[in-house]
């Protein structure tokens, strides 16, 4: 017989269930899939999606909710999105932006709310040095790719080099990173216009300078323009060296044959022979029509995996934010890049690899692992961090 007491009990039980179900782990992802970083942002999205699928939509075994909104690479819009994520959605983790300027724009609000920001790409020097924060976790520091390239240039015995980058703060940072380690002579240091289309003048300067090799940091379309015109201009004999972003799968796809033989450095490569990485790469290629993942996809995948491990390590108790940050700082997951640890500034101490663009067994152009350039390398800014 149905008694009112039972109904009350049922209601209480149900509401308890609802309360539990309504409290999933909330992850705010700022997608960067339109605007200036759309290509890299789409790669990151694919990495996030694969990780979420692999984990069955859960984090650390807990139900999770992944909020994804595009902010079009605009720091102002990123800020508004983060405010909404913090105030309305009350997120537990944040990740997503591609560019350093967006990361710098959203950092302070997240840190004030004690929400861990696991970078899926940018590693600005500010957050590595004076403005370091226990709630920010880098994947690499911006300069480290260039430092690895500088070390490679030394080992290769390049005595004279020309280095080239766009004339804006990040361009200077990257060349400074290279110069920090490179010990040979610089024939020329060229700064180009941001968004430059035609590189004939610079290429003529390089031809006249006759360097042993050229190091370039020209992100996105600028790099594509430059490489095509460089090879078309008959400078094939002078090797090109670049940080991995300028020679990743998206760029290779767009440039084609002229990419062959281009040396580049990165903290990850798709043919790193590690079980976690092989599983990631084959799952990625299966999900996305045989396409090789870029480093953006790998980092996005890792960012979600880091959250997963942290939720498990704190036993799902996300209210203790300091404990969550502590768990994140001691990564217990199998990263696709292999073993790594965080330095005092929450930036990784990790290996950097040399890759070269070659044809794979199917005749597809892609990066091939050559070797390790730097082992357990730490960024140059850690000393400025007071953590």
């Amino acid at each position, binding site marked *: 017989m149905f008694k009112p007491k039972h109904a009350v009990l049922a209601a209480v039980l149900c509401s308890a269930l609802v309360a539990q179900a309504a409290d999933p782990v909330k992850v705010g992802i700022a997608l960067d*899939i*339109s605007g*200036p970083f*759309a*290509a890299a*942002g*789409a790669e990151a999205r694919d990495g996030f999606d694969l990780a979420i699928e692999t984990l069955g939509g859960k984090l650390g075994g807990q139900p999770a909710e992944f909020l994804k909104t595009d902010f079009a690479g605009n720091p102002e819009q990123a800020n508004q999105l983060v405010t909404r994520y913090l105030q309305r959605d009350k997120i537990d983790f944040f990740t997503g932006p591609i560019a350093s300027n967006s990361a710098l724009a959203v950092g302070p609000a997240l840190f004030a709310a004690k929400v861990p920001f696991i970078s899926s790409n940018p590693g600005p020097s500010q957050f590595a040095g004076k403005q370091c924060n226990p709630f920010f976790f880098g994947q690499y520091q911006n300069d480290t790719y260039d430092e690895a390239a500088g070390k490679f240039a030394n080992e290769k015995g390049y005595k004279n080099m020309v280095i080239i980058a766009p*004339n804006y703060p990040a361009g200077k940072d990257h060349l400074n990173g290279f110069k920090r380690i490179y010990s040979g002579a610089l024939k020329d*240091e*060229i*700064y*180009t*216009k941001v*968004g430059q*289309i*035609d590189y*004939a*003048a*610079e290429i*003529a*300067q390089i031809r*006249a300078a006759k360097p042993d090799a050229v190091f370039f940091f020209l992100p*996105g*379309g*600028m790099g*594509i*323009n430059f490489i*095509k*015109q460089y090879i*078309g*201009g*008959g400078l094939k004999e002078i090797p090109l060296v670049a940080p991995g972003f300028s020679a990743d799968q*998206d*760029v290779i*796809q*767009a*440039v*084609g*044959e002229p990419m062959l033989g281009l040396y580049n450095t990165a903290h990850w490569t798709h043919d790193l022979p590690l079980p976690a990485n092989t599983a990631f790469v084959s799952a990625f290629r299966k999900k996305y029509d045989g396409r090789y993942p870029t480093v953006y996809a790998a980092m996005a995948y890792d960012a979600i995996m880091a959250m997963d491990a942290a939720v498990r390590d704190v036993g799902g108790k996300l209210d203790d934010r300091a404990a969550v940050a502590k768990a994140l700082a001691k990564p217990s997951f199998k990263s696709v890049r292999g073993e790594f640890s965080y330095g005092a500034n929450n930036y990784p101490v990790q290996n950097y690899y040399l890759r070269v663009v070659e044809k794979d067994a199917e005749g597809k152009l892609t990066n091939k692992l050559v070797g390790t350039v730097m082992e357990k390398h730490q960024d140059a800014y850690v000393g400025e961090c007071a953590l």
Partner: protein
Amino acid sequence: MDAIFIFEQLLNGLGYGLMLFLLAAGLTLVFGIMDTMNLAHGSLYMAGAYIAAKVHESSGSFLGAVLVAIVATILIAALIEWLVVRRLYSRDHLAQVLATFGVILIADDLVKAIWGPSPIMAPTPAALTGPVQLLAELPYPAYRLVLLGVGLAVALGLYLLVNHTRMGMLVRAGASNRSMAEFMGVRVGRVFSFVFALGAALAALAGALMGPIGAVQIGMGEAILIPALVVIVIGGIGSVRGAFVAALLVGLVDTAGRAFLPPMLRAVLPPSLAADLGPALAGIAMYVLMAAVLTLKPAGLFPARA
């Protein structure tokens, strides 16, 4: 710095100038004759580049790809004219800028929906990949020589069309005084359609030819629209001759700024100052040129409207 280096940079400047001319010629015709600011010109350029790259990839014929790109882009332009631009002829420039800027945003998203957000491959035609030994010490990219040739041919063709044909006469009449031309019995509407199609064809040609030496990606049209606008302002809006001279000037000044300014400054200034100043000055060289021309001749070098 030897003579060959200077000669090479001169060629580079001419080449860049002629590329800008292909885009600016269409823009200046449409603006000069129809008094319509069509920012979507950059999107037509992008359409030309994407279509040419895709057709080239699947057919293997570069020439065929360029022709298909031109025809397809004319059709797209006709659609845009019919849907949007036709309604804007009588409106003010702000409305035109806003509406055609909207077209840019839609075009960028359409391209992303069709071909994805990543830049696509636009290979150089196989016969033109390598350099040509122009002088004993000067290898020059074969493809860039072709660009130079096409740019000059288009300039000559436009000159003949505008100055020595009946259609050209009507175009000039429309550009210098539209209402007077209408009173004299010129069917300005027909001239408008012709000019819009011609502008689209030139934009598509420029896009298709730029593909092999540049990034074929979303937003490529906006990036090149800025120097193209500088060119038509310097040349005098509506004047093809002005666009030609201004494009070569901008190409030469920009290239010279990048090639010669930094080393010259390094010779006379302390290194740290020169390192900051050189690229900054080179970056604004073409705007300085524009400011100088506008100070001396506020309507540009060859104003179409007297």
